[in-house]
């Protein structure tokens, strides 16, 4: 299944990719398994293929777009299953416009599958809007992602603003993205509570942290 999907996205064949997902679903593959065993490893594989110069950035863009669309096709089903009233809430935002926000979205979806409530704000959310929203919704977790070192000051600023707005009982703040994956000590230096290697790792850590 994973190979079939990988081949489809590498070939840039959206229909084939969707068909692969549909077949897996029909065969009884759970959404979570689809994320853990297909989407995440395939996107990692895509990165590897680029490093091997087997595919180009354009191919990677296409694969990302196809995977985003494939995930979007599952949203109806994913959200229909949810609805716990006291589910922990996570607010997610990207520090900058970047195609790698897919990872953050995966984190949100995986947590949704575990009964969490998530709000994905996407890229380029002004810090003050983010803080206002966090103060209003009082999430348990705020997840921020950044891929480049130049965006770190913004991440640090956002974290400081959230802490200042909610000095007591504030949210746990998690950071992720390539720049943090490259330097494990960086998360603590920007003031975050938690970081992870990838979406699956982050979801596991958060679930562990909030296992009621």
């Amino acid at each position, binding site marked *: 299944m994973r190979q079939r999907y990988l081949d489809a996205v590498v070939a840039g064949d959206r229909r084939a990719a969707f068909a692969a997902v549909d077949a897996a679903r029909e065969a009884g593959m759970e959404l979570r398994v689809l994320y853990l065993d297909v989407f995440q490893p395939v996107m990692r594989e895509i*990165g590897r293929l*680029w*490093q*091997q*110069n087997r595919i*180009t*950035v*354009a191919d990677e*863009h296409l694969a*990302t*777009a196809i995977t*985003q*669309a494939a*995930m*979007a096709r599952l*949203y*109806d089903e*994913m*959200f*229909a299953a*949810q*609805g716990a009233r006291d589910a922990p809430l996570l607010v997610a935002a990207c520090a*900058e*416009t970047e*195609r790698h*926000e*897919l990872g953050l*979205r995966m984190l*949100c979806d995986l947590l949704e599958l575990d009964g969490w409530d998530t709000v*994905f704000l*996407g*890229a380029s959310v002004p810090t003050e809007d983010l803080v206002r929203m966090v103060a209003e919704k009082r999430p348990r977790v705020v997840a921020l992602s950044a*891929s*480049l*070192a*130049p*965006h770190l000051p913004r991440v640090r600023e956002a974290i400081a603003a959230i802490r200042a707005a909610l000095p007591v009982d504030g949210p746990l703040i998690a950071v992720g993205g*390539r720049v943090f994956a*490259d330097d494990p000590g960086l998360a603590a230096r920007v003031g975050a509570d938690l970081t992870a290697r990838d979406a699956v790792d982050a979801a596991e850590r958060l679930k562990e942290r909030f296992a009621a």
Partner: protein
Amino acid sequence: MSPIVHTGLHPALRGFPGAVLELDAADGTVLESNGRLEAELGCRVLGAPLDRVLDEASRRKLRALLDRLSAPEAGAPAEGAWELMIEARDQLQTRAFFPVAEAAGGRVWLVEAPRDPRLQRLYEELASVNSEQANTQRQLAKEKARLARALDELERELGQNDRLSRTLQAQNEEMEAQNEELLAMTEELHAGQEQLMSTNHQLERRTRELQVAMSARNRFYAAMSHELRTPINAVMGYNDLLLASIYGPLSEQQELAVERAQRAARHLRELVNDVLDISRLEAGKIDLEVEDVALRAVVHEVLDTLRPVAQAAGCELRLLDDGGPAVVETDPRRLTQILLNLLSNAVKFGAGAPVFVTLGGSRQGGAVVEVVDGGPGIPDEEQSKIFEEFVQLGRDDNLGHLHGGTGLGLAIARRLATALGGRLELSSTLGVGSTFRLILPPRPPRAGA
């Protein structure tokens, strides 16, 4: 660090629109540059490893490229363009380089493929649009799910409400029905109450009217009796004086006339006495003097009293003793009055047939005295009237009488029987005779009070 040796770039590459870099194949240090990359990044790249401006993945990719170029036999040839991500200011730029290796090794040239920077922007824009779209889709799906849940909940609530309201409605209807029933009952009660009240009122009014009428009548009777008795006594007194020849001897005719007058006066006095009695009885003002009375002695006394009258009427008086109590607690004077009335009636109306007095006992331990005559009997329809006042059978028209008496005797006798706690009954058969039965209790109801 190995010494930097500047060999210089081919002049043709100096004006090349893309970046051209000469690298140390061993460590990727930039040995030569046509200045394009520096110009775009705004920083020096010459003399330092190219890694400095690459992201982590691109560093690994560059190392792989250099490895392959220095040992082409080890892997696939490094054909075509190699993309590297250059960290430029606050964004990553994709640059495609064509690698060219020196045959002897040691140096590598990277010649950037001519590119349209707009293509990069297009990629970025497309990716951004795509992401935004995906986000929107995600939010919509989430909102849709939330709405669906809310709708479900609403429907469930509505269903519950519906059930609840149906139950409530049923209860309501039941309550309303009960209410209506209650209301109807209340109305009925009310009507009944009103009727009762009106009946009460009527009764009260009638009672009052009756009381007024009775007391008026009684006062009338009492006054009349008193006013009448005085002149009657006077008449009788003068008659006696006349008959006693106090005013001189009377002729036979005169004597006869005075005797008639005297008889009439006596009857009148009897009548007035009876009227007085009955008015007292009706007014409830009769005073009973209750004592232990030897019944047989009283009966004998009455029989003795009436025997002359009976003899005059040619009838026999007989006593039949069937037992019964020897003594009853009662008023002897009233008992005598009743028995005298009954026996004198029996003699008067008995048509000369023997009159029997029987003595017996009642189940309650009282006494039963029957006076049985052999007279013509009283028709059924008359029997209820006979105890009424001023009724004498066979002479309902006037006071000119055959038998004498006032027509109040039986009325008085029955009232006296009632006052003594007993009753007076009549049974009669036409052509055979009549039986008056006096039933007396062992003691009058309020004897002890």
